[in-house]
């Protein structure tokens, strides 16, 4: 039970090799059911002060083990999933004209500084720059589709460009 609450250095590489070697030992259905409930909880209560240790404790798993299982199932850590969800919601609020500070608070982020740097890393521009520019392609689609299509993706592979490009064509 001495697992650290945060991810140790080299964690991403270790998870990748775990996932690869886990190929012949798939996760149990019970584990997947719990992971789904944790992911649904994040989708529903992303604005609450949720954190990985709290969710892991509910599953009687250590935070590191929970993160590993989640990443094996969904391809990203629960913390990354939660932050991506928050940023995606913040993008919608900013498009509606909400201030950066209010959007930060509304999605459950507690520090404006780390919210802004996470936003910039995932979206490729600062929250205020994103808020200031036009968003015709996204505004024209229902929120349920915007949620899927504007979902920030790792490594700058955002699909926002695709949406704008296809709307323009």
């Amino acid at each position: 039970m001495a697992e650290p609450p945060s991810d140790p250095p080299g964690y991403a590489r270790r998870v990748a090799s775990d996932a690869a070697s886990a190929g012949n030992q798939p996760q149990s259905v019970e584990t997947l059911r719990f992971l789904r409930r944790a992911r649904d909880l994040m989708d529903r209560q992303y604005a609450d002060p949720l954190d990985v240790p709290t969710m892991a404790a509910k599953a009687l798993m250590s935070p590191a083990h929970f993160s590993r299982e989640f990443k094996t199932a969904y391809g990203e850590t629960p913390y990354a999933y939660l932050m991506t969800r928050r940023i995606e919601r913040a993008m919608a609020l900013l498009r509606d004209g909400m201030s950066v500070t209010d959007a930060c608070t509304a999605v459950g982020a507690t520090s404006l500084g780390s919210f802004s740097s996470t936003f910039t890393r995932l979206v490729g521009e600062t929250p205020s720059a994103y808020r200031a520019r036009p968003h015709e392609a996204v505004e024209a689609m229902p929120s349920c589709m915007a949620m899927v299509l504007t979902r920030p993706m790792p490594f700058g592979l955002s699909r926002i460009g695709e949406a704008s490009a296809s709307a323009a064509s």
Partner: protein
Amino acid sequence: MTDISLSYSPLTVDDVDAAIQFYRDALGLELVNDVASDGHRWVSLGFSGQPGLMLVLSDPGAGRSPEDGEALQRLVVKGSGPGPIVFNTTDLDATFERVRAAGAEVLQEPKVQPWGPRDCAFRDPSGNHIRINQAA
């Protein structure tokens, strides 16, 4: 318009009996047929307002290899299966309360969506994403 309509739509569930409780007892569909063959089950449920239309529940291995069945079960259970399935009702609030009281996992309470409809959302007992719209 061409004369064509939807007749059957399949839905994979990992516990057929729990699914019957959800779709028949909580949601209000009518049990039309329950067929067992070769260790698998196909359960057809109908809609009073749409005669002929059937939702057909079956277990993950029904009609496919055990390997494919297992893979499909995993997708459904982890919430990444096909869906959502979207229903209409004339009384969204009563339906929501009935389904919640039956113990279903709530994904979203009834609310008006920015793009128009008022809806709510659940997981069925297997993990399928179910949405219910207030009919106009």
